[in-house]
């Protein structure tokens, strides 16, 4: 069973429907035990990181999240869920994240080449490393993004794919061991997005050591 973590950060219906279209039942939950028991965990979210962290703390989800990642459960972060994984964010004058990966989250510079903030729409994703979730997905495929902040992993080994916006080349897919995280929304990225979700559902959480 897949657990989609509900911490009150945005609407999770489209994430659940994405899995449903693949014939996979996903449970939207904030129950610690359900999360710890899940075969796979999806950590989505939209909105502000500060209030999201508060809600995660309020629901006492920090430890269960660390536990599932530590025990090797395949874990997928999406959008805000991806940003929260890092140590800190510049949002709201500086917010501490979950620190599951080293790195920070930064704000796009406004006006860079006339770029609007937030970035809304389909942008191409350049694959930098092989990964089981990319199986059958062409390099340069376009995915749907909605965000004003972007992740900056401290360890470049964790950058699985990159995308360009507002003069920045940022990490649009990040991964380490059983954790993979996308800045875009696979559940709203048409067939290529569904392919990524399907790959995630087939993934055992292991990656081969490649350089």
């Amino acid at each position, binding site marked *: 069973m897949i657990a989609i973590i509900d911490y009150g950060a945005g609407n999770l219906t489209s994430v659940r429907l994405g899995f449903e279209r693949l014939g996979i039942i996903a449970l939207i939950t904030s129950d610690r035990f359900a999360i710890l028991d899940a075969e796979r965990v999806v950590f989505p979210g*939209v909105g502000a990181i500060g209030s999201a962290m508060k809600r995660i703390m309020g629901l006492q989800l920090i430890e269960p999240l660390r536990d599932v990642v530590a025990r090797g459960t395949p874990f997928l972060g999406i959008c805000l869920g991806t940003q929260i994984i890092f140590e800190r964010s510049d949002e709201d004058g500086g917010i501490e994240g979950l620190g599951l990966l080293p790195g920070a989250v930064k704000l796009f510079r*406004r006006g860079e080449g006339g770029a609007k903030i*937030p970035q*809304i729409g389909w942008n191409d994703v350049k694959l930098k490393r092989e990964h089981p979730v990319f199986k059958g997905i062409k390099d340069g495929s376009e995915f749907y993004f909605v965000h004003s902040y972007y992740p900056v992993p401290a360890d470049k080994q964790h950058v699985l794919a990159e995308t360009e916006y507002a003069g920045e080349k940022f990490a649009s897919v990040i991964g380490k061991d059983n954790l993979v995280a996308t800045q875009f929304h696979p559940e709203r990225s048409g067939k290529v*997005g569904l392919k990524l979700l399907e790959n995630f559902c087939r993934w055992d959480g292991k990656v081969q050591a490649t350089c």
Partner: protein
Amino acid sequence: MLTKRIIPCLDIRDRKVTKGVRFRDNVVLGDPVEMAIRYYEDGCDELVFYDITASAEHRSIDIDMVRETARSVSIPFAVGGGISSIEDMSRVLLAGAEKISVNTFAVENPQLIAEGAREFGSQCIVLGIDPVRTEDSLKFPSGYEITVRGFRQRTGLDALEWVKRAEGLGCGEIVVNSVDTDGAREGYEIQLTRMISKNVGIPVVASGGAGKPVDLVKVFVEGYADAAIIAGILHAGKYGIPEIKSELARFGIPVRLNW
């Protein structure tokens, strides 16, 4: 590179897609969910549904339609028409829509934008505006006045002043639907689109007037639009989305060509 979005618009009346000029002479075109699936398969980047009678008749949007659409297509879509409260927004979002579009009720109660953005995030809140050209430059420095209730009512609000205020309140995107060009299929109103786009920091979606692919080229290049809504040009069956996109690509405009 971020691509320019092509967004088919479905005007809904009694669970049917209709199309009319300036909200009059409406013709039934088909079932909204079936049409959404067709345009999704044809490679549209997003969809928007307007329940064109909900606002006037004080009833809420057809939630079953939103739910069925969300099950059937996996691209983002916005829903508008008669949304006047956080409860209305919540119902539509929980049914699977990505965004809500507010127009008349945001003019009547601008706090609706702020409350929606706080509750669901700015990216969910789209402001639709229906500006009409005016000669009264003293009262309307931008040259455009905001109308509401499907163009039927003038508001006394200057178009530029209103969008800047709405941006400050937290809306994440603006749909600029020109009253003067809507439904005429003679091209978008470039000057209006450009003025709004250059004066806000959030994405601007052009709407009203597309009749042929080159109209989209113009609104992207000269109007600085980030996305374009199309309706009649598609519904009439004269042009398909792949055709429009390849024309845009021919002019060097970044569009999503694989889906």
